[in-house]
């Protein structure tokens, strides 16, 4: 169901990022973020196996989509409503590896909820990253409401809300897009379509061929983009942000990607995903492809890459050590923040 052709040749020609308005520095930085995200990912799976993290769910396979999108947004200025799979996104927007590790470990320094929520329920007021829940799709009307407020105040902030293709089946998703379309609100609806909602494949989830096809039902532009390509994703989100700021209303972006791991540590994907399919997608690992692209563009070599990998590992080591040393919240904190007054 994921059309293969959009996944080929997207990383050429070398230097293509400059046309998209990205500097050489920025793309190397993108790569750093992708590598760092992957390193965190791998570490939390390890911590999961050790029984230190009770729930592991990561972005592996989605890094290009998320990092590409994050680079097109203005941290702390635009509004962000991520979903649970968006670790690479929030990392790029400004959550530190330490904060992310504290989140996974449910410690006091978890910036998202102080250990109250399960991991990966991102939130950070300083970054305008809005607290999300587990029920899928509920953040979509929130995004419309936030954008409505921006519009009423005549601000040029953009609201970015992401979700998987599974979320598009919910009533809230429909209601939120309809509202945003009616009021032509400055929202970017960003669907990370990885072909599965846990085990349910796209064809049992979405009646039509492409999530982006649904944009027309809501008076908005629909775009399909190769979510394995950070430059293409960046360009799509950038264009959508400009459209939103220019009063052109919302955009629905479908970034096609793939989840490299089971849904979460509670899942086992072998009953529903053929190994060959997983292997085929893994050969298009966005980190490898992007590395090749940067090398072909003369921005990366093996030495620098080793350096980046080592830097990422060191970051993760340090974050993990610090987070493991961070205490759990005190029991007295169970009772706080029920009401404001």
């Amino acid at each position: 169901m994921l059309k293969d052709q959009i996944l080929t040749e997207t990383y050429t020609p070398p230097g293509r990022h400059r046309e998209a308005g990205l500097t050489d520095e920025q793309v190397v930085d993108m790569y750093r973020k992708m590598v760092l995200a992957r390193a965190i990912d791998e570490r939390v799976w390890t911590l999961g196996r050790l029984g230190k993290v009770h729930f592991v769910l990561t972005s592996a396979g989605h890094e290009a989509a998320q990092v590409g999108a994050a680079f097109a947004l203005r941290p702390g200025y635009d509004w962000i409503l991520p979903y649970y799979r968006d670790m690479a996104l929030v990392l790029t927007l400004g959550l530190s590896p330490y904060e992310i590790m504290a989140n996974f470990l449910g410690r006091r320094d978890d910036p998202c909820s102080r250990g109250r929520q399960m991991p990966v329920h991102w939130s950070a007021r300083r970054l305008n990253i809005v607290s999300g829940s587990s029920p899928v799709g509920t953040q979509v009307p929130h995004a419309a409401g936030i954008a409505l407020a921006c519009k009423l105040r005549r601000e040029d902030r953009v609201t970015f809300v992401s979700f998987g293709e599974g979320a598009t089946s919910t009533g809230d998703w429909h209601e939120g897009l309809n509202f945003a379309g009616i009021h032509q609100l400055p929202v970017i609806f960003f669907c990370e379509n990885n072909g599965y909602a846990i085990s349910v494949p796209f064809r049992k989830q979405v009646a039509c061929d492409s999530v982006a096809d649904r944009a027309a039902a809501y008076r908005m532009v629909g775009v399909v983009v190769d979510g394995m390509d950070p430059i293409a994703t960046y360009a799509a989100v950038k264009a959508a942000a400009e459209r939103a700021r220019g009063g052109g209303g919302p955009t629905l972006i479908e970034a096609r990607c793939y989840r490299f791991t089971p849904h979460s540590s509670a899942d086992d994907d072998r009953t529903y995903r053929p190994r060959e399919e997983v292997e085929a997608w893994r050969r298009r690992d966005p980190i490898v492809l992007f590395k090749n692209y940067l090398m072909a563009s003369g921005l990366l070599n093996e030495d620098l890459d080793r350096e980046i990998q080592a830097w990422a590992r060191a970051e993760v080591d340090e974050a993990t050590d610090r987070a493991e040393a961070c205490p759990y919240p005190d029991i007295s904190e169970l009772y706080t923040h029920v009401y404001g007054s």
Partner: protein
Amino acid sequence: MAVKTLIEAIRDALAEEMRRDPAVIVLGEDVGYRGGVFRATEGLIQEFGEERVIDTPLAESSIVGVAIGAALNGFRPVAEIQFADFIAPAIDQIANEAARMRYRSAGEWWCPLVVRAPFGGGIHGGLYHSQSVEAYFTHVPGLKVVVPSNPYDAKGLLKAAIRDDDPVIFFEHKKAYRLVKGEVPDQDYTVPIGPAKVARPGRHLTVIAYGLMTTYALEAAERAAAEGIDVEVVDLRTLYPPDKATILESVKRTSRALVVYEDNLTGGFGAEIAAIIAEEAFPYLDAPVMRLAGPDLPAMPYAAPLEEAFMPNPEKILAKIRELAAY
């Protein structure tokens, strides 16, 4: 002070709060040029314009969801659910999102948001225009649930709700809208969310009620007085979190308690009031904690005789008062 109906008091509160604070916006189905199907928002769109008085699509979950978003981003939305019977699709947004936002973010995010919903029966509304749905919300920490019984409280409580930094569900009894009249001050005032009120002092027994049932309980109390039974009526006003102190103080004094509500008996909010009294006033009780409520049937029927049989009313309350007094 002018005498107003309950619906007029609501409308005044909305208009005054919108004048006072530009962050207050109103949204819901038909709240604009129609002025609301009960006329609660009449005149608002003319005064405040389409930006602050928003006719939404027919989609209750997003009415609340959009309001949550606007609340997160600095506004104080007052969302209207046209009939409480249609609030179910919004329960997820109310209970799991609005009510849990502050707790789940450890205080970083919160939702100053009011959801108004007309509820209750006795108006030929049949199954889906007569429901009492407060029990869905009176066990959701993080929420406040308010049910005014009279115009004074309605206006003061709605203003307090709009100024509150937490989500408030505000139920207005449809039959009370025009039936219940009372004096309402012209100057600005609020009635605090939280405290119940002794609506009628009495010595022999305590009736605890809210919404239209307070009016009915007061009527029954008057008639009981003629029979020599001196009834205290506690009007809860805020259902959640419940004002245990006022309830317990009264029952400890009278030693007898009757809880009246219009919702189905079993699992209705009155069960919690009864449970609180049974647990915390036990040594003071001279009689069982009694309840008078709607029967355990799926809904109030439309046909007049059946509707009447379903609804609690002053006669039924009086009969129960007699039973409790005689225990």
